[in-house]
């Protein structure tokens, strides 16, 4: 019976959705205010407790120092935040894509967190859906694995289950970039022996998997060598972002389709589809999950197995 329910859920995703909308949502509301309390406590520690020894020597000097330190800590934090947010704002979304900033509220959580993931504070209410691309100022970070109303779990590109088609910027060598876990270099698979790829080249997305926009930087080639009688080159790469320093990320979402009046203004040169044709399952599958929700018929969208698409 368990296997039956498990398999049914794998195919439909109903119970996963229920778990996301309850457990993940509750965790988001617990962790987010906690972050604020933690920041206040850290600030309190910096201001008062750390300078107990100084107070014993000179009360006036201690107060001055504490005040100066408080201002300095605050200024540094503000400067750091401003720099990070500026970097995020400098991410130029590809044409027909929009960018939305989001805060990282936790990394892997609980005994069920088998994959390299983190949790962000944006969810379906912000039009975040499964497979929404997630980027940092340095490059691609990952994609949304599951989402609740106000939170989402992001699968990082460094996870062994992340496989992304990429091309090197200089030599235009194509391959599949596969993660190997936290702290491990990534592997560029299926690179032919004759490829001219060199260490230091930037790998960018090709967009062939239908999830990421084309041309986003993802990793740097660190090592290229041959191994035994293999038909392919052994290419290692390093992700451009540091998972341990991620605090804010940007979500890339497809821009909404043009309004009906704009469409009507354009000359209609195409053959019109029969009414209701877009509701057919085959067409919905072809469009994929990256279409904005407005363009997707909600009632007929088939449930997709988590992780599908990469």
């Amino acid at each position: 019976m368990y296997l039956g329910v498990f398999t049914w859920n794998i195919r439909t995703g109903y119970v996963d959705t229920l778990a996301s909308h309850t457990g993940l949502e509750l965790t988001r509301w617990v962790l987010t205010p906690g972050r604020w309390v933690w920041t206040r406590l850290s600030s309190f520690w910096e201001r008062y407790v750390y300078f107990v020894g100084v107070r014993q020597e000179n009360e006036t000097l201690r107060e001055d120092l504490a005040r100066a330190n408080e201002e300095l800590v605050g200024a540094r934090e503000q400067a750091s935040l401003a720099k990070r947010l500026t970097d995020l704002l400098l991410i130029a979304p590809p044409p027909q894509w929009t960018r939305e900033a989001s805060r990282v509220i936790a990394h892997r959580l609980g005994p069920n967190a088998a994959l390299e993931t983190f949790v962000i504070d944006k969810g379906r209410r912000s039009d975040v859906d499964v497979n929404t691309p997630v980027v940092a100022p340095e490059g691609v970070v990952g994609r949304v694995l599951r989402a609740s109303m106000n939170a989402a779990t992001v699968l990082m590109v460094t996870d062994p289950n992340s496989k992304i088609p990429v091309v090197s910027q200089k030599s235009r060598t194509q391959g599949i970039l596969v993660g190997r876990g936290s702290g491990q270099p990534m592997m560029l698979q299926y690179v032919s022996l004759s490829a001219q790829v060199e260490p230091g080249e930037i790998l960018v997305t090709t967009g062939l998997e239908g999830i990421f926009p084309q041309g986003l930087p993802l990793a740097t080639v660190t090592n290229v060598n041959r191994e035994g009688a293999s038909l392919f080159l052994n290419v290692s790469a390093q992700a451009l972002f540091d998972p341990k320093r991620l605090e804010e990320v940007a979500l890339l979402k497809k821009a909404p389709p043009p309004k009906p009046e704009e469409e009507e203004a354009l000359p209609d040169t195409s053959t019109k589809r029969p009414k209701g044709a877009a509701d057919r399952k085959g067409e919905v599958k072809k469009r994929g999950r990256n279409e904005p929700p407005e363009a997707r018929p909600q009632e007929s969208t088939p449930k997709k197995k988590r992780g599908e698409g990469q």
Partner: protein
Amino acid sequence: MTGRRAAFWTVFTLAGMWLQSFLPGVDFLAPGLILSLQEEKLRTTVILGVIWLFIQEGTGSLAFGTVVLWYALLVGLFFFGHWLFEARNFLFMMILGACLGVLHFGLMDVMTQLQDWRAAPGRVLVESIVQAVVFPVEWGLIYIIHNHLPQNGQNI
């Protein structure tokens, strides 16, 4: 359940969720399930178990079902060990913690393979060891706190 006990379990749940964000891969709510089985009515345990189940499943990255097995096996192990050991014995909790460690490694292996996914075995092994150590220590701590609640006048 009295107000103080409800407050205890609420604080325990919130603290457990927070601790889980500091130590990924470790279940800080599992010792509460055992303590609830020992100290609370079955209905309370079921309610707490369902809440924790959805928290763990919702925040995890595998398909729904892993934590169902995880908690079901934990409860099964508890009732099985209950026949052999005194249920509130710390040694029993250490054995239960060791079993949980092995269970974490095995379950992660089986469930990731079932979904055709991969998890780094080295990292899961470290998590299993931490789980085995954390479980009895946390159980001992919450057992003492629970028995010091004003309306629980038990000798510990």
